[in-house]
């Protein structure tokens, strides 16, 4: 289970995998946005994706929860294997909804629903048919605690979500994603719309979360990737240029392109 494919990536991850990306290509109509991507995703670890705008990192992330299926003209090739049941989650035979019930996402711009805080967090549970008040109460509180929001909003969880600040709204979205006990949590540039204080809070939160689940985070902020993640992949023009333990990637990158990006020579 420790990476079954050739290349330099085979030896990078020596621990248990939660997922494995094999020869993933992706096409927006005729345009190829991802070229033969291979990547192991370690369980209970944070894997970061960095790269300049347009390199395909968000496209890659959105393959994991089949978001591309919402729009016509998109096509996947290759596999993303989910462990332990060895399911290829981008197979057309697998329902995207099933994938989304196991893999949650937090978006770049906080997108709470026009509902109360409580109903926002409970939304995923209600979608799964969970309507018992006592169970919902319990799970909502647990999720809000995990998202480090409980202390701030306890007492007003039946207020509308729009009254929260930007940072709080994003943590609410994280709570919403956590309430359904996902196996993998995807973060799409989660702090790019937030101020530095809110950003710090969320980074601390993400690092605590890896205890319970596997995290993939896309970020255009290299320092964030360096601070937060265990493994980092550098992407450019739809390909993975380099993948390594974060510490090694940022101190002794093996490829020149990676080094140029990290030192700010482009992008």
């Amino acid at each position: 289970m420790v990476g079954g494919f050739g290349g330099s990536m085979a030896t990078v991850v020596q621990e248990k995998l939660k997922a494995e990306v094999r020869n993933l290509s992706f096409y927006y109509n005729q345009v190829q946005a991802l070229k033969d991507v291979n990547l192991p995703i370690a369980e209970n670890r944070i894997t970061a994706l960095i790269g300049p705008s347009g390199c395909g990192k968000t496209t890659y992330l959105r393959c994991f929860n089949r978001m591309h299926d919402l729009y016509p003209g998109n096509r996947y090739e290759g596999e993303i294997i989910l462990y332990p049941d060895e399911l290829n989650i981008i197979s057309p035979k697998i329902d995207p909804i099933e994938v989304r019930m196991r893999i949650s996402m937090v978006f770049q711009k906080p997108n709470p629903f026009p509902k109360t805080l409580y109903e926002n967090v409970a939304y995923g549970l209600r979608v799964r048919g969970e309507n018992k008040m006592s169970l919902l109460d319990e799970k909502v509180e647990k999720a809000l605690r995990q998202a480090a929001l409980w202390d701030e909003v306890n007492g007003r969880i039946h207020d509308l979500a729009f009254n929260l600040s930007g940072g709080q709204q994003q943590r609410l979205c994280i709570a919403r994603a956590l309430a359904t006990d996902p196996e993998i949590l995807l973060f799409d540039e989660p702090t790019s719309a937030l101020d530095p204080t809110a950003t710090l809070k969320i980074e601390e939160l993400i690092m605590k979360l890896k205890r319970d689940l596997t995290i993939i985070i896309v970020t255009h902020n290299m320092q964030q990737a360096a601070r937060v993640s265990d493994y980092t992949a550098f992407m450019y023009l739809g390909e993975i240029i380099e993948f390594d333990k974060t510490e090694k990637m940022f101190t002794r990158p093996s490829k020149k392109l990676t080094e140029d990006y990290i030192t700010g020579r482009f992008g």
Partner: protein
Amino acid sequence: MKERAIEGILLLGALSSIFITLSIVFILFYEAAGFFKDVSIWEFVTGRQWTPLFAQPKFGILPLVCGTLLVTGIAVLVALPVGLIVAVYLSEYAPHKIREVAKPILELLAAVPTVVYGYFALLFLTPILRNFIPELSGFNALSPGIIMGVMIVPYVSSVSEDAMKAVPMHIREGSYATGATKFQTAFRVIIPSAFSGIAAAFIIGISRAIGETMVVAIAAGMMPNLTLNPIEPIQTLTAYIVGVSLGDVPHGTIEYKTIFAAGITLFFMTLFLNILGFWFRRRIREVY
């Protein structure tokens, strides 16, 4: 100098809308005042018979108001749910080809002259409904009500659809990412987000039904009737005005005054609706 003159002329054009509104209000109130000099407001509002042209005239507006509300109620029962469902279907579900065909058809539905709908209600729908409801009278509230409902669907659906399309994509994605289906996303997230627009659509639909004239004039009957039974003939406020106007209506006669009394009642009903809609939208804006 010439520029100022031109601006002045154009301003006059723009002011015409204010002028028209003022004229409507003025004429209605002025002529209705003439009516209420002879008839007490109390009798008007509470009387249960409307027979202004009899030897012993009765001036209770309730039968006409009731007729209007009955037909409107039936129309709204058809138009609001169907309109909303069509809007959700077209904005969230329908493939491009179906939308291309459905939207022009809905526009056409709204463009058909109302006399033609009246003809259809009287001569086609009523006989068909008679098969299911033998006691259905030739003039009734059910048939025009249903036709009006279908007629109004395009108004409700197009305004609702615009409201739903305005909900940003990232809110939709947030819902889908939780594993929700289209149905769950549409009804639990998008409709609440688009609520004020949908409320506006509903109010437009109700307004349109209240003000409709020809369909009811042709198919509902010309006899005021204080009833809530849709199989009986009734007369609406609008049909009354048309009915009287078909004859000679010299200025200052009692017939002349009654149509303005009916008119001002209609005016207040639609005004009330407009204010309701306005208030609704203010509240929603505060909340969201």
